[in-house]
C-alpha cells in the first residue's frame, strides 16, 4: 500500500516537473523555424513539453509562452496569467510592450535581438582602431540615444548624428554624414535601411571611402564592412537555459541582451577599401575581453 502511495507520489512529482512550453512563431520558416528547431534539440533531454505553433493556432494550456517576434509578442502580451518570454524583439519593441501592457501579475521578460551599443562600439574599436569619427543616421531619435552618446564618449569616439527628415530626404542626409564620418554605424531602422534604400546607401558610402558597420549577416554580404549579431541558434541556447531555470524557480530573469554573438567580416570590401582588419576570431576575443 505504502509503495503504491509512494509510487503515486513519485508519479505526481514527475508530472509536476513537466513544463508545458508553447513557442509562438510570428512568421513561418527562416530564422523563426531555425530558432524553434534549435530550441527543441536543446531541450530534448529535459521533462519539457515543447509545442511550436504559428500565429493563428490555439495556444492551449501553457506554463510558459515563448513569443518569437514582435507580432507574437504583441498579440500575447495581453495574456496576464501566463509567464511570457519574448525573443527576436528589439529592445525598443520590448520597452513599448511594457509600456502598453503594464501591471502584469506574472513574469514578462525578453532576450533582445539587437546588440548592446557597447558591443558594436567595441567592434569598431577592435577593427578600426585609427578611426574615431563615427556617424549614425536616424529618422526619429532612438530611445537609448543618450546611452549611445555616453558609450561613444567613453571610448574616445566622436559621434556624428544626422537626422533624416522627410524634407531633406535620405540622400542629402547621407552625403552630409559622409562628409563628417570616417565610419558609419548602421542602427537597425527599416525606414532608413531597407532593400530599396540599401543600394544607394552602400554605393554612396563606398564612393566616399566610408565603411559601414552593419547589424546582420545579410547586411555584411550586401556590402557592409562587418557586423556583430546573434544567430537564432545562439538565442535558442540562451532561451533553453532560461526555460531550465524557469522549470525550477518559475521566475524569468530580467530582460537581457543575447550573451552569445558572432562577428562577420566582408573580406572583399575590406580589401577594396584598403583596410587592414584583424580576422573575425581575433575581433571576437577582443570584444569579449572588454565585456
Amino acid at each position: 500500500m505504502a509503495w503504491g502511495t509512494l509510487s503515486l507520489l513519485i508519479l505526481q512529482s514527475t508530472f509536476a516537473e513537466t513544463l508545458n512550453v508553447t513557442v509562438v512563431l510570428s512568421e513561418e520558416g527562416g530564422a523563426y523555424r531555425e530558432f524553434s528547431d534549435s530550441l527543441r534539440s536543446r531541450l530534448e533531454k529535459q521533462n519539457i513539453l515543447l509545442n511550436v505553433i504559428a500565429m493563428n493556432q490555439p495556444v492551449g494550456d501553457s506554463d510558459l509562452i515563448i513569443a518569437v517576434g514582435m507580432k507574437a509578442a504583441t498579440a500575447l502580451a495581453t495574456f496576464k496569467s501566463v509567464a511570457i518570454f519574448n525573443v527576436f524583439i528589439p529592445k525598443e519593441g520590448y520597452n513599448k510592450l511594457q509600456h502598453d501592457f503594464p501591471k502584469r501579475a506574472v513574469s514578462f521578460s525578453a532576450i533582445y535581438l539587437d546588440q548592446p551599443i557597447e558591443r558594436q562600439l567595441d567592434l569598431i574599436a577592435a577593427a578600426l582602431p585609427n578611426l574615431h569619427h563615427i556617424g549614425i543616421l536616424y529618422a526619429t531619435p532612438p530611445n537609448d540615444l543618450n546611452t549611445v552618446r555616453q558609450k561613444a564618449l567613453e571610448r574616445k569616439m566622436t559621434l556624428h548624428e544626422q537626422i533624416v527628415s522627410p524634407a531633406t530626404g535620405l540622400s542629402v542626409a547621407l552625403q552630409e554624414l559622409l562628409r563628417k564620418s570616417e565610419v558609419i554605424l548602421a542602427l537597425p531602422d527599416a525606414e532608413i535601411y531597407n532593400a530599396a534604400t540599401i543600394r544607394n546607401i552602400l554605393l554612396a558610402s563606398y564612393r566616399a571611402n566610408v565603411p559601414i558597420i552593419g547589424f546582420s549577416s545579410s547586411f555584411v554580404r550586401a556590402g557592409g564592412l562587418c557586423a556583430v549579431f546573434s544567430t537564432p541558434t545562439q538565442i535558442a541556447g540562451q532561451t533553453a537555459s532560461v526555460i531550465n531555470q524557469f522549470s525550477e524557480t518559475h521566475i524569468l530573469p530580467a530582460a537581457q541582451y543575447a550573451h552569445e554573438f558572432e562577428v562577420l567580416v566582408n573580406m572583399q570590401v575590406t580589401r577594396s577599401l584598403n583596410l587592414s582588419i584583424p580576422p573575425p576570431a581575433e575581433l571576437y576575443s577582443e570584444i569579449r575581453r572588454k565585456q
Partner: protein
Amino acid sequence: MDNSTKVARQTINVPSLLRGRSIFLLQLVSIILPISAFAANNTLSEQDILQEFPVVLSASRLFQPLSEAPNAMTVIDRDMIKASGFRSIADLFRLVPGMYVGDLDGHTPIVAYHGSTDQYSRRMQVLVDGRSVYLPPFSSVDWEDIPLHIADIERIEVVRGPAAASHGSNSLHGVINIITREAASLDSTRISATRGEGGVSDMAAHFGKNSTDLDFRVTLGYRADNGYDSAAMNDSSATRLANLRANYHPNSEDSFDLQLGYSEVSRGLGVAGREDENLFRDTWTSSDFQQLTWLHAFPQGDEVKVLYYHIHRSVKDNAPRGTAPQYNTPDNTKVERHDLELQHSTELGANNRLIWGTGVRSDAVESQLNLTIPQSLYQSRFFVHDEWRMTSSALLNAGAMYENDGMGHSNTSPRLAFNYHFMPQQTVRVSTSVAYRSPATVEENSNSPGELVSIGGLRPERVFSKEIGYLGEFSQLGLSINARLYADQVSDMIFIDPLLTGWPPTSLKPYSFANLLSANFRGFESTVKYHWGDNTSVIVNYARQMMDCEITGQLTYTFLQPSLQEIADQCTSSVPWNSGSFLLAQQVAHDLTFSAGYYYQSELQFVGTSAPQSRMQRLDLRVAQAFGEKEKSGGGEISFVVQNVLQDNYTNYSAVPQTNNILFNRRAYLTATINF
C-alpha cells in the same frame, strides 16, 4: 520615405484562443490591437534586423585596391582636382609621375607618357566612362572638345604601363580612365563663374535631382580664354558644352545609365611669320556623343554590362588656311564612331574573379584634305582577365586581349602580374605585358598631295613591358608609398618617311610613314602621400626617365638614313631626366583652405621639334573661402588661383621656330560658386 519594404507588414491575426473569453476583454483587445498594429508599423520590429538585403557591393563593383592592381596606377580624386586649381582637364595629368603635359598652343594640350614624337599623343588610350575618345584620323585625343566639365569628374585612374588586356587597344604606354560623377551625385543647383587674366572667362551651371528610381544631373558650361595671349600665335578659344547623365534603377538588379553630351568650340589658329601655311583665322569643332550602359547584377554576385556609344566629331577649317596655293583648300574632318561592348564578371569559386568581354566598333572618317576617299574601319575585340587569389597574400592577375583592327592586323596583347603582400599593407608587384598600337588612319591611308601621301603597309607598333613595383601603407604615420622600376621596349615605331619633291629635292614633303625605329624606355616613378591630422595632406611625385632609340627600318630614300640617325639620337632628350610634382592641401580654418602645387620638369626636346623646352619650375597657389553652409542652399565658395607665381616663365612644345620663345607667364583667376 517609401514604406514599401520587402516584408509586408501584415495585420495581426487575433488568435482563436480568445474565443470564449469575456466580451469586454475581446473589445479591449480589439481596441488595443489596432493601436499596437499601427504602433508596430512605426516602432522597431525584428524585421528591421532580420530583413534580407540584396548584394550591392559585389566583387565586380568593388574597385581593386592599388596594392592588388596588375599595373601601376595613379588615382586623381576630387580633392586633388580642387587643390590643384586647374581649369583645364589636361593639366590634371601633371599630378601623375612620368607624365608629360605640354601645350602646342592655348587650346591644344599634349598629354603623353614616355615622351611623344609629335603633337598627336597617340600612344595612350583615353576613356571617359568606358567611352574611348582616342579618335581617327590622327589617333589623337582632343582634350578641349570632349563634352566634359572638370567639375563633373569623380576620379581619374591613370594606368602607367600597357594595359591592353583590360582597357583595350592602343594603350601602348598606358591608359587614362576618366570616371565622371554619378547621376545621383547632385541633388541641387550650383552655379559658378570664373574671371581672370588672359581673357579667362568661364561659366557653369550644374543641376541634379535624385528620386527613388531615377537620378539625373545636367551641366551647361562655357569656357574661354586668349590662350598664351602672345602676338606670335592666334590661339584664343571659346568652348560651349552641355551634358546630361541619367540613371534609372527600377530594382536592385538593373541599372540603366544614359549620357548625352554636346560641345562647340571655336579656336583661333595661325602663327605670325608663317602666313604662307598658317594664317590667322578661326576654326570650329563640334562634338557630340550618346552613351547607354545597362548593368545587370545576378543574385549570386555575377554582373553583366552592355555598353553602346556613338561619337560624332566635326572640324571645320575654312580656306584660305595660308597664302600659298596648296593651303587654299579647306581642312574639314568628320568622324563617326559606333561601339558596342558586352562584359561579364563572375566568381569562379571563392578565390577567383573572372571578367571577360567582347566588342565591335565602326569608325567612319572623312577628311577632304588628308584622305581621298572616306575610310571605314571595323574593329572587333575579345578580352579575358582572371584574378586568382593563390593565398591570402599572393595574387596572380592574368589576362589577354585579342583584337582585329580592321586594317588587316590581328593582335593579341597578354599581361601577367604577380602581387605579393609580404607583410600586411606592404606589397611587391612584378608584371609583364605586351601591347600594340595600330597605325593611325593618316599614317596608313593619307592622300594629301604635296603634304601627306601614305605608301601604306604599316605594321602595328609593339611594346614589351617589364616592371617591378612596391606599395606600402604606414597608417600609423599617415604615409603611403607607391614606387616602380620599369623597362619598356617599343619596336616598329612609326615615324615620318620623307618622299621628297623634285630632283634635286626642293622639299622633304610629301611625307609618308614607315616602321623605322625601336625605342627603349627605362625609369623609376614614385608617389608618396602623407596625411598630418585631418587638415594637412601632401602628395609628392617623382620620376626619372631614360630613353634611347635605334634604327630598325629603312627609309624610302636610303641616302637620308644619316638624318634618321640624328633623329634617333635626339630620342634621349625626348624625355625629361627629372620630373615631379608636389601638392599640398591645408585646411586653415573651418571655411578657409589653402593649397600649393609645385611642378618640375628638366629641359627636354621632343623628336622633330624645332627647339628644346626650357626647364619648368612652376608654383601654383590657391586660396578658397567658403561661405554659408557647405553645399546647402545659399552656401558657396570664392577661390583665387595664381599659376606660375614665381614667374619662372618656361617655353612650351614648339613645332616651328616662330613659336620657340612663347612663354607660359604668370596668370591669375577668380572663381565664385553658389549653391541653390
